[in-house]
């Protein structure tokens, strides 16, 4: 099962990189989402896929019996999903506001902070 998921992760990352190389901000943001999900899946695979027994300790015992699922990657992924979602929500609002302010979603045309065609810096002291 791991190799299949590993290939899926690489597919996610490839799509994400392709989208993020775009000049259009919306595609970049879609790439960011796909990247986040690919990485979440990566953490899941890195935590090893075991049988589906839940990691619950039976009464009177100290550890769960037999093979059980690793709960830690799930906790990590849950945190990462929440954080990634919050970041994405912020970024998409930011992109919309930037689109309103500059009338552009092409990063080549977003040059307010770094204006093009500035005169050369003075050569003398």
């Amino acid at each position, binding site marked *: 099962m791991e190799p299949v998921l590993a290939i899926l992760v690489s597919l996610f990352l490839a799509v994400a990189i392709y989208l993020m190389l775009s000049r259009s901000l919306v595609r*970049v943001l879609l790439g960011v989402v796909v990247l986040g999900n690919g990485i979440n899946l990566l*953490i899941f695979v890195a935590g090893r896929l075991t049988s589906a027994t839940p990691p619950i300790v039976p009464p009177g015992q100290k550890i769960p019996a037999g093979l059980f699922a690793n709960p830690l990657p799930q906790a990590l992924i849950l945190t*990462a999903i929440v*954080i990634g979602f919050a970041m994405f929500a912020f*970024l998409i609002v930011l992109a919309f506001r930037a689109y309103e302010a*500059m009338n552009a979603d092409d990063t080549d045309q977003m040059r307010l*902070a770094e204006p093009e065609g500035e005169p050369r810096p*003075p050569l003398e002291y």
Partner: protein
Amino acid sequence: MVLHPTSLADWVVVLPVLLCLAGAAVLLMLRTLVRLQRWVCLAMLLSLVVCDGVLFRRVLADGPLAMTMGNWPAPFGITFAADVMGAGFALVAAFVALCVVIYMRGDTPESAVRDGAYPLILLLMAGVSGAFLTGDLFNLYVWFEVMLIASFGLMVLAGNPLQLDGAVKYGVLNFLATALFLAALGLLYGLLGTLNMADIIGKAARADLAPLTAIAALFALAFCMKAAMFPVNAWLPASYHTPPPAISALIGALLTKVGVYALVRMLVMLTPEAREILSPAILAVGIATAILGPLSAIAETNLRRAIGFVLIGGIGVAVLPIAGANPFALSGGLAYLVHAMLTMAALYLAAGLIERGRDQSDTRGIGGLYAANSLLSVLFFVLVLAVSGVPPFLGFWPKLLLLQGFIGANDWLPVFVILLNALLTLIAGARLWSRLFWRGTGDRVSLPVMPLAATIALTVAGVVLALMPNVLIASAQTAAYDLINPARYIAAVGLSP
């Protein structure tokens, strides 16, 4: 399994983070009470400085201090661990934030306060303190994100188009960096089965070196992006000059340093074997950053962008000792970070005063400040000398330690680069000085009291630290020793080395 309750004194390890988070929550509730917000924020940051100071003294005297959430035995549960490096950086960062908030008293419109400038600053400080004090890699990731989202909010505070443009580039690239950090973290967990830093040290030494080095390289890439190292630093000059000067100063002084801190922690302390393999790459990137930063600053005409490039050059210098990791040079690198936090914050604040006085940010349009305000001239001159490392000022001592370390190890390339960086930074600073202060004439500039006082406080703190460098040098050397021989750290966390 609760063995014994944590003693009250040990709470000081998490108190900085708790203070900031609680303060931010209180400030959110006081949203409409603009005047009160400033005072509460100041009080919180003052107690943060005191708390970090107590922690730093204690760590300096007794060695690293750790506690694990829920009193779980060490590799389980989230560990907070303060060593000399982390506690020292947290202390300096808190002081910088305090000065910035004093500056903001005279320089922030009421609308920005209503939009939450002060709670965001406290949240940012929670992220910064947490990043410096945590002993768990995933927790470090969470603090990075706390820091990031707070800085997003601060970046776009007034919401003018210039800021939005800067924030888009800052936001996307920094989010990408933390995503890479997360990926590296997942892979490291897959390899070692632990994310507790003290536990990683032991397990990484026994792990297969090839995958470990690949993972360390991914970590290094992510942290280099956060630290604005050369090939991946395009976001910094695109964004750090767009928010109000106080915000520039805060994020410019702190966020990139957290990136360098994470790089040092990861490569030097957690995976020293992988560091040895990666060191040529780190050296090359450090050299490129240290030279290209000030070169770009020489060619830049926007005042705060020029300062941003000087900042990037300083990051390059601070990263060089990671490639060599001899204790002397490493202590120089750590001391350099302290210097960079204080001096860069002061430079950004001084730039804010200049831009405010002349109402523009293009160095070609500003002139004659020497006659217009002598106090500002003195401040800026001291800062230019400090940032390029001229002897009586703060930049000198870290560079001396660095040079001593590298010469002792017979490593002449970094020596040459550090000296070249100092020269280029001096040229860039002198160009700014001659353009802003000596050339042209202009009306007298009167400056508001609070912003000026904050800038003076930061500058004077740097000068005092430079005149009494023993504290800085001794603690930097302890910190470097603890990084290279982490036995004390591991024992404090409660694991056997």
